[in-house]
């Protein structure tokens, strides 16, 4: 179902303008097509009728700025992350090199009344992405939450501290290798021998 538009030649040169893509490879979605033209490594994927663009994580903030300023995506609705450590079947769009973490940002355009989702693959060795707070101040709490629960750093965030867990908490609870700390159920005072 996915329209693969991957151009490996231009990886590592984010500033260089990407050459126009072949017409048949262009995403059906105009915003996604514009993003793919602008960022060489962007990959469009249609997920259950929703537009999803996979991006190199270095471009997340730039893409956010582009969506806000040029495509009228007025609001960043949500920022979250996924840990794919123990997936049975790894869900990823064709052409995407899967990494352990994914940072997911949902955008909403009030004027055009549509949504788009950006997903960045984030490796375990260097869990960091550029912060969207410069473009969308409303992602402040959400990025702190992702930092708190996944340990993914948002470079450029003004106040990247734990938000939900206590400050002296060790670990990032929503990582799959962080135990959920399930306490075995005991029946205190049960007189019967066990």
């Amino acid at each position: 179902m996915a329209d693969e538009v991957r151009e490996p030649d231009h990886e590592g040169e984010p500033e260089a303008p990407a050459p126009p893509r072949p017409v048949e490879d262009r995403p059906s979605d105009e915003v996604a097509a514009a993003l793919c033209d602008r960022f060489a490594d962007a990959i469009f994927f249609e997920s259950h009728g929703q537009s999803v663009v996979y991006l190199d994580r270095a471009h997340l903030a730039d893409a956010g700025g582009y969506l806000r300023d040029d495509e009228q995506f007025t609001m960043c609705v949500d920022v979250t992350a996924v840990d794919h450590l123990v997936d049975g079947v790894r869900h990823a769009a064709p052409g995407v090199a899967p990494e352990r973490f994914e940072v997911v940002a949902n955008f909403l355009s009030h004027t055009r009344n549509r949504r788009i989702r950006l997903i960045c693959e984030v490796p375990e060795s260097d869990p960091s992405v550029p912060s969207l707070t410069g473009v969308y101040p409303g992602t402040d709490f959400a990025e702190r939450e992702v930092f708190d629960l996944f340990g993914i750093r948002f470079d450029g965030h003004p106040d990247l501290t734990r938000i939900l867990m206590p400050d002296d908490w060790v670990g990032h609870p929503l990582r799959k290798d962080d135990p959920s700390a399930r306490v075995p159920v005991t029946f205190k005072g049960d007189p019967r021998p066990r």
Partner: protein
Amino acid sequence: MSDELAGVTDPNVLDPSEDAIAEPIGSQEAAADHPFHRVPADEARLERQTGEGAQELRTREREIVMTGGTWPVDELGDTMVINMGPQHPSTHGVLRIMMELDSEEVVRAKAIIGYLHTGMEKTGEELTYVQGATNVTRMDYASPLSNELVYATAVERLLDLEVPERATWMRMMLVELNRISSHLLFQATNGMDIGAVSMIIYGWREREEVLRLLESITGLRMNHDYIRVGGVAADLPDGWREHVLNTMDIVEAGVAEYDALLSENPIWLERTVGIGAITTEECIALSITGPILRSTGFAWDLRKAQPYLAYDDVDFDVIFTENGDVFDRYRIRLYEILESVKIVRQCVANMPGGDYRVQDRKVTPPPRARIDESMEALIHHFKLFTEGFKVPAGETYTAVESPRGEIGCYMVSDGSGKPVRMHIRGPSFYNLQAMGPMVRNSLVADAVAIVSSIDPILGEVDR
């Protein structure tokens, strides 16, 4: 004023001279030069204020200030940092607000959350899709059915499942009933926070009627677990039409009463009009949705803008006002009750027949009677409620309009019976970001009104 108070009790300064008191409040440059404001004194003051006024969380007192993020200590001039919460009667549960005060005026405020962090997203990854609704319904406990709805629609989208028409209309009716009960709760608590204490009696009077109606339909007053993947848990009970219509009449009469009691009450207006104003641009920049966004003059409602369920087929209006202050947020929630009453009445009139859950054996358990006579049905029932069903690998984001704004569910499946990620975008979580800008330069008493008008449900903020 703060100079004077601090000077009297500050152990480091025994004799504050005359000019220190006469110093105009707020001129921080001049104050910084004065010996009174040397750094050790500030340190001691900070320790004392946070140690006394704060909830002592750890023995290391210095770090109390830092809890929940850095606080610019060096800029602390004539001001004083106090804590509100997490155990404070008007912070809607366990919200904690750190405020920097210049006498009565709030210079800065910061919401510190997480005191109700329940690890629901982690628990959601350990539960099957059948059990998941039980988990999400406890997030926003004032409007549990919206949570269940967004969860169920996310799973249904991954499954490509079409819900029967009757289930759609039942869902819509219940979500609107829930919106009524949630807004009635807001009217009660908002009134109490601002000082109209009789509102808690009146608001609960009508809310109780709605809760009884919900109990008769879903079996529980709260945390219903009624909207499930593929439909709803049970059909409507006998005599539901009369019960619903009677309750709607009671609610309408109640709303008229609140309107008469508050909307032109000079004390109420004094406390709410022009307090905590915010503009549309600020709201959009801060990802704020729901009644707060609509109170700024922007009629954005997902029920109209991106219709789901059967909102296309019912007639209702999106309430919006222009000023974006506490009073407007109160008014919007009041009149939204009436719009919801309108929708519920149309649901009663147009409720279609048919199945209340999809006849797809993959997600729907066999009827109870079949279990008694068929071994296969018993095994099927058992498997469905222990192992659940498998959902094809994929990811999706669904959003609906809860009473507090856009509630979203980002769901990732790896093809197994449990989600890889179940993330709920809680509207209160984002709306709370507006608290800082709205509270700035207001009085402490107004800060209470502002926090109340945001209507945060901490279960959803912290999840």
